[in-house]
């Protein structure tokens, strides 16, 4: 499928690369975003990368739609940046190198009330589930749903479960959850229908970090590290006291 433009009303334009969840398509989305940022066009308010599309919210009184569309189709040809090849900074304005993160998680018990059910549904033990989740390097495909909420993928085939039949009214903040091929962390307490496996002490969204309020960005890589209850409590207290900088969660 060649990239195509879709009108999302008169104030937004969507560049769509395909119709499936695929890291290669998502990498094209990120590359197009970076190429667009380098153009520094006036009249754009938001540029939103999603699984397989990039949406530009703009003011049509200040930026000609036709011109924006032509730019976007050119940006669609931008070369993708492989995570493995990413240096510290590429030097291209607007382009941020993907970051590798290692996020500590306490699994099971009251932190992950669905761990046992997930083990049962997949015919594995709880420790096999934890091992599998932590062995997989997950890609941040997009941030959406709630401020700082990362959609991570993709989980091994055998771990893909449908959403809960009845969503929970309140998923605790910082819960690690899975559904289908995706994993996510809820930065805020919210209703939710995903399976809760554990909880992280890491703060995923911080309004005081104006330059980068969301910890994770599309294109980043995430690995989970299992921790015990006492380490979770120690880290959570340190995060609350702002004794830990976000950079501490980057993979060594």
């Amino acid at each position: 499928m060649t990239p195509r433009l879709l009108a999302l009303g008169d104030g937004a334009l969507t560049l769509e690369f395909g119709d499936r969840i695929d890291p290669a398509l998502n990498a094209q989305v990120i590359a197009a975003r970076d190429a667009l940022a380098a153009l520094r066009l006036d009249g754009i308010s938001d540029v939103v990368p999603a699984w397989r599309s990039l949406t530009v919210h703009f003011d049509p009184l200040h930026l000609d739609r036709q011109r924006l569309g032509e730019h976007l189709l050119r940006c669609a040809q931008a070369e993708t940046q492989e995570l493995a090849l990413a240096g510290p900074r590429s030097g291209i304005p607007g382009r941020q190198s993907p970051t590798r993160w290692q996020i500590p998680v306490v699994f099971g018990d009251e932190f992950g009330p669905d761990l046992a059910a997930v083990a049962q549904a997949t015919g594995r033990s709880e420790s096999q589930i934890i091992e599998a989740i932590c062995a997989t390097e997950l890609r941040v495909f997009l941030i959406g749903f709630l401020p700082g909420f990362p959609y991570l993928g993709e989980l091994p085939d055998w771990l893909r479960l449908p959403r809960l039949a009845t969503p929970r009214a309140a998923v605790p903040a910082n819960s690690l959850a899975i559904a289908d091929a995706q994993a996510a962390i809820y930065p805020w307490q919210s209703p939710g229908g995903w399976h809760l496996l554990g909880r992280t002490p890491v703060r995923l969204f911080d309004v005081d970090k104006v330059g980068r309020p969301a910890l994770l960005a599309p294109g980043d890589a995430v690995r989970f590290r299992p921790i015990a209850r006492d380490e979770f409590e120690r880290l959570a207290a340190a995060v609350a006291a702002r004794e830990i900088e976000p950079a501490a969660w980057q993979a060594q």
Partner: protein
Amino acid sequence: MIEILDAPLPATFQDGGRAGYRHLGVPLSGALDGGWLAIANALVGNPPATVALEIRLRGPRLRATRPLTLALAGEFSARIEDAAGQSRAAGNWRSLALAENEILDTGFLKGGIGYLAVHGGFDLPAVLGSRSTYARAGLGGIEGRAIKSGDCLKVGAGAPPIPLRLPQAPRLANDPLRVIAGPQRDYFTDAAWAAFITTEFTVSREADRMGLRLDGPRLDHTRGSDIISDAVTPGAIQVPGDGRPIVLLADCQTVGGYPKIATVIGADLPRLGHALPGQTLRFVEVSLEQALAARREAAAILAECIASMVPERAGFDLDALYAANLIDGVIDAQH
């Protein structure tokens, strides 16, 4: 300061919105009707997108702890009570001077929403560049929530502005809402599209700042009701599997997984903000060129409206005009 004495229904602070953070999952938010926000602010001498209180159906009662100038944009039935317990009607679409300890009861609203602006603006911290309240993530406003009784709000200082009034209240059009065919128009049968642009829909009780769920003919999909989530925007009309459309508004999430049959154009978006449960809506398809012309027209109408404001006859104060240096040339002529 302003003290909130009573807030029977949730009212939130809103400004021009939190643009620039949607890639991080942060909704745009901001006033549902940015034009009326600008009018309320112009009546008290503020810049157009200054934060104001957005009120739905029934507004708060509040007390001024010092003399203040306020304005109500909307069809309120407000009254002012002085310290002696004497009550007088407080008009809409004009500057209102409140003496120390006077109480303003904003009363019931005829129509969906209205704005209360105060000269100097409400002194609230900007969160990610905006003072707009987004309650789900506790951003903006007062501690990220709707106002409640007991809240005390600091108000910007400055000399009282020239009292103004708007000779003619702005009119909300009643024509069909203009839409652009949606990015997933091809997910719907031709019968669904025909029903969408020819039938009346009713705003259901599920209506808030995130969106309006509509009742009407069922809009059938041709190939499933799930898409791989992509970006949405205020005005986008999503149709989930039950075939009942949802029109998204300012607090909508940044991405959504339902096909979008159409998007209401920017010029007609404010009218959706005023829609109340039970109200009927119609849609009509327009071209992108027509949408652009409509935006220009809406901007011109708003500018005309603000330019039409005149000083209050009763409060006409020539000295204040001189002080504000609004009468250009007059001061020079004295030399």
